[in-house]
């Protein structure tokens, strides 16, 4: 496996990859917009075509269309050899320094509050801060354009997730909030007041169309969504599922327990803990062992689960479970953050991504192009990390 570490030396609080741009928020919460084409051109200029090819696939375009054509190219022995030689000569990780010039600082995507989370969905930008949740807008063709910003919720919001026409805000002990999205492109301002749909939520993650809301309990709340297929806006060619409400599925604990119990005997006072999930894969810690459970939370069907054969045959915990600060989902598995390291867990095993304290880690599991990219903000840099099994 070849790893690519593209480093931008800057004071970065958060970063998003979205439709050809890199959005970076500094520690004053100002939003800088960079062109990915400009960054790629610099990599090609400074590091040559092999590294540029690696960056193009690992960081900017690991969607299925590009993946198919790229994998075909890599099946050419000379190309595969060139990439393998590149990885071998760099000891497995190729590091590049990014020196981009921002297209602009966008005021409407900046905030005066301490930014805790960002979510970009359907050109809507959600800024979760220590004091409120804001909604703004970005047009990918004109990312530097200033738009309006609206307050959506006046609470500290630790995590925000948007999908299926709905935005969920985890306001910790102030509850979980749901708001439906206004898709009117001419008047995109929020029109629906958020509704409190849960008592507590510290972190959110999707599993199929359901939402896992992580609380102070060992297992998250599983929220099954209800909605209808609708045309998001008047010009839409296709219908899409739109969430209207949620209902808690209380069977998660029993389903998880019975799935784990198939493998090992339960001990008194021994509580399985969910470390996190990557879409339908739930990473469980139990008896100092880690197991991945595949959840099947399909609409109109009872929740089911089974042990994940691919992960469980190779999974070795890189650290004790109580040393895990947070986990993050990527297409190929899980990213595990500890006090002084960041690991990638795939069905192939565990890889150390970064041996450093992370100020923040961000992944893009809902993205089309960046499903396996990991962004790590450290004390003085942004690392864009990608990998490729060549």
């Amino acid at each position, binding site marked *: 496996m070849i790893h690519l570490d593209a480093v931008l030396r800057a004071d970065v609080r958060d970063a998003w990859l979205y439709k050809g741009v890199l959005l970076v928020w500094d520690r004053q919460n100002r939003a800088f917009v960079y062109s990915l084409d400009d960054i790629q051109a610099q990599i090609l200029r400074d590091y040559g075509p092999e590294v540029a090819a690696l960056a193009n696939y690992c960081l900017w375009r690991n969607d299925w269309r590009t993946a198919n054509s790229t994998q075909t190219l890599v099946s050419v022995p000379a190309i595969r050899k060139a990439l393998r030689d590149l990885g071998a000569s760099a000891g497995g990780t190729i590091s590049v320094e990014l020196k981009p010039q921002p297209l602009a600082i966008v005021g409407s995507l900046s905030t005066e509050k301490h930014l805790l989370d960002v979510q970009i969905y359907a050109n809507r930008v959600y800024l979760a801060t220590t004091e409120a949740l804001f909604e703004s807008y970005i047009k990918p063709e004109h990312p530097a354009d200033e738009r309006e910003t609206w307050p959506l919720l006046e609470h500290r919001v630790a995590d925000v997730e948007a999908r299926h026409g709905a935005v969920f805000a985890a306001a910790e002990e102030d509850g979980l909030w749901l708001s439906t999205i206004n898709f009117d492109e001419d008047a995109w301002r929020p029109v629906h007041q958020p509704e409190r749909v849960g008592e507590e939520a510290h972190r959110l993650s999707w599993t199929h169309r359901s939402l896992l809301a992580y609380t102070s309990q060992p297992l998250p709340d599983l929220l099954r969504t209800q909605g209808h297929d609708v045309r998001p806006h008047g010009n839409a060619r296709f219908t899409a599922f739109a969430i209207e409400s949620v209902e808690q599925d209380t069977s998660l604990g029993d389903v998880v327990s019975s799935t784990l119990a198939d493998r090992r005997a339960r001990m008194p006072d021994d509580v399985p803990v969910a470390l996190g999930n990557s879409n339908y894969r739930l990473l469980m810690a139990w008896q100092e062992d880690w197991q991945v459970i595949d959840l099947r939370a399909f609409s109109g069907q009872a929740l089911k689960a089974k042990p994940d054969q691919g992960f469980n045959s190779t999974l070795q915990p890189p650290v004790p479970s109580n040393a895990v600060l947070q986990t993050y989902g990527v297409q190929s598995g899980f990213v595990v953050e500890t006090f002084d390291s960041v690991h990638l867990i795939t069905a192939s095993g565990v890889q150390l991504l970064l041996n450093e304290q992370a*100020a923040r880690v961000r992944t893009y599991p809902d993205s089309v192009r960046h499903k396996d990219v990991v962004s790590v903000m450290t004390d003085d840099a942004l690392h864009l990390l990608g990998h490729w099994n060549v």
Partner: protein
Amino acid sequence: MACEIVEVRNDMTEFKACTGSTYLSLNYHHGAPDRHKTKWALAREEECGVFCHAQEQDWDDGDENLWSIGQNGSLIYGKTQERMAFFDGSNASDTWHGFPVSGRSGTSNRRRPPQTIAQRWLNQGHINKATYERIVSGRL
């Protein structure tokens, strides 16, 4: 002046802390980890020393509580990897007790240091920016 043991009782050890305050090391914050009370991974004298350091540095949250953290969060105070400590001074006049706190997502807001304390630690150079970000976002 270091912490001095005043009395060992059935449920606590009483110290005269370095600043002259009374510090109570409570038994239920020592021993095997459980889900109800966090447990010190430090000896009782070291626990009192963490309190002393917080008091000397005046890491007061303005609500009669003190908070502490090692340089860049590098010290583990609790048996389940807690890297910060909370000292409750609101119960009685100049009598304190404390316990390790995790500061992680899922921890009650009351058991996480306010942003003003984290900012003070950052301004003093006691923690780096990464640790500050982790405290504010609940990942330490």
